[in-house]
């Protein structure tokens, strides 16, 4: 049995479908990433899986329970960290945890022990009785992660857990999530629009764009699935006509995409193509303004499958949020 089984799930707001017939499964113990730009439908999808938004059609089975028919059983099985920081600023770390432990019906004798254990795990035990309003963004996020685990859920949903955090705090959250996953035998579903985060954290990644699933596999396989092992980004001071075709004829070149004077060249052999490129440019009397050679990244995968870079998009309003969600 899969921990998560999403079947043809769709959510439309009027004529606009934020999520359009998505299906996938997540096995036990996996870290599953939903990667996509703002407005791709990631948050709507995660809200449907966590019973916060009813699907227009289709459904999802979470821990074997249908989100539309057994919502309360789903809620007992999952921990959820919403995109917005929802801890109470006026309360202490322990009070925030304790309120949620009570909402989940954790017995008194177990409550205090569990709270201490989790605050220890997220390295906040020394701040246990300090008001959350004095916490940094990273500390608040760690507290919320601890809060989401207070009832020992089987599946843990995190919606953009590192958005707004500085690079050091982001790395700290990644490491903490990896440790918590091991120690608590969790299945984790995380939405993100950070490629490096998805690459480092996730066992498998679903690339979502315009509410549809455009690719799903492990980061390694996704990177291997696109043409070329290396990407050369090169710009020239002047570009004669037919220059793109000349570049395509260079050895080991798979694909060339042009944007004004900047060319993005996929190659099976980056170093060789670079040497040949410089030679061809010299012979044609074209000066190279800049050149970089990179291994394939998830950015390349994303561009390959979606045909565009991460971009902003207008979104349908979702009840209960002051600001448009940034999925």
């Amino acid at each position, binding site marked *: 049995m899969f921990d998560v089984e999403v079947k043809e799930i769709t959510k439309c707001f009027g004529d606009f479908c934020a999520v359009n017939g998505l299906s996938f499964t997540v096995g036990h113990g996996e870290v599953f990433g939903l990667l996509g730009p703002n407005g791709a439908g990631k948050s709507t999808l995660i*809200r449907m899986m*966590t*019973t*916060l*938004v*009813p699907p227009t059609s289709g459904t999802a089975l979470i821990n074997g329970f249908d989100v539309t028919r057994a919502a*309360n059983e789903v*809620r*007992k099985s*999952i921990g*959820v960290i*919403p*995109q*917005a*920081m*929802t801890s*109470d600023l*006026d*309360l202490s770390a322990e*009070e925030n945890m304790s*309120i*949620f432990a*009570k*909402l*989940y*019906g954790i017995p008194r004798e177990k409550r205090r022990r569990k709270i201490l254990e989790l605050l220890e795990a997220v390295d906040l035990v020394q701040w246990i009785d300090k*008001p959350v309003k004095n916490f940094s963004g990273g500390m608040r996020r760690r507290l919320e992660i601890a809060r989401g685990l207070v009832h020992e859920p089987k599946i843990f949903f995190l919606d953009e857990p590192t958005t707004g955090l500085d690079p050091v705090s982001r790395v700290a959250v990644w490491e903490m999530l990896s440790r918590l996953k091991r120690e608590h035998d969790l299945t984790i579903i995380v939405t993100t629009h950070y490629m490096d985060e998805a690459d480092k954290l996730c066992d498998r990644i679903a690339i979502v764009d315009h509410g549809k699933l455009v690719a799903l596999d492990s980061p390694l396989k996704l990177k291997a699935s696109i043409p070329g092992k290396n990407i050369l980004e090169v710009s020239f001071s002047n570009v004669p006509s037919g220059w793109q075709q000349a570049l395509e004829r260079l050895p080991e070149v798979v694909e060339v995409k042009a944007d004004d004077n900047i060319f993005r060249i996929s190659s099976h052999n980056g170093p060789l193509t670079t040497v040949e490129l410089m030679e061809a440019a010299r012979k044609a009397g074209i000066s190279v303004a800049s050149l970089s050679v990179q291994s394939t990244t998830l950015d390349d995968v994303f561009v390959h499958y979606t045909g565009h870079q991460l971009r902003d998009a207008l979104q349908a309003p*979702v*009840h*209960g*949020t*002051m600001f448009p969600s940034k999925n």
Partner: protein
Amino acid sequence: MHRILAIIERDLRRFRRSPTLVLVSIIMPLVQLVILGYAFGGIIKDLHLGVVDQDHGVPSVKMKEMFQAIAANARTFDTTAYEDLATALKDLRTGKINGVLNIPPQFSRKVLAGFNPHVALIEDNTDQFASTSLQGSIAGLLTAYNQKPPLPHTTAGATLSVVEIYPYVPYIQYLLPGTIVLSIFVSCMIGGGIIFIDDKARGLHEGYLVTPISKFDLIMGFNLAGAFKAIIAGLVLVTFGSIIAGIPDPLNIARLLRLMLLVVLTSLALISMMFLIMVRVNDPLVPRAVFGMLNTVLYFPSGAVYPINAFPAWMKAITVIDPFTYAVHGFKELILKNNGLAAISYDLLFLSGFTIVAMAAATMLFRRTL
């Protein structure tokens, strides 16, 4: 039950750390009580009456002496003598005087001849309160002027003696019941309206909605937490308001207990109403925008500041369904008349029924999803 308590605990812990809510909901009505109580409750004095005597006979002199007696004692008005009506009217229009009493020529001759002479009061009626006071004072004075000792062997006319069964109720005391209800309302409006919607907009409710808490538990938790804060505001107003307004024996335990019951039921009714109004609202501007309107629509027609009997029919219709009406009536009975619970049983019944209906409707309308 433990989930309801968790919601209440969260709210009350936040409230304890930041008690601005109750301070605002107590101080604003208290200030209103004192300012309105003294602004509207005083006896009007020191009006200026111009007197034009075109007669100069003995009866007119007697009448002017009576006016001067009022000026010296009750001080409702003082008098200024004018030689001609035109000058007096000019001063009336420019606001130097509040009214002109014209004693016409032939007044004394008509009095002595046994006719019914007229004197005219020309007044500035743009200020209803001042003109009504002036009218009342001069009408009383004319009654006294017209009083004749009964002749022997004739039948005397009937007179009215007024006996007041309660001590004199100054306007500040009359305002107190409405002020208590207003403070409960302000607390409900801030706690049940503004903070509720702000929390929702900040995503705090999302945290609740992913837990296995039921709709009913959530609504009960929100309502009871809001009611608790409103009860605190109401009890403070009952105690300090009574002392400020000069209610006799303000700390009488039996009466305070009766008042406490009414405060609790009023708080529950108003927080339920507030929750029903806000249950589908997502925009944080809405509760702020409707605050003033709700205050006007509920407070003023309730009889808190003026008797309901004076209202037009459409406004009386509002009072029938306005929980303020029943709460204000209940507080008047308990505070101004020191009555027992039997006198407010209908009010208690209405407030309880209103709470149940509003809570049930809010539970039905509440969406457990975003």
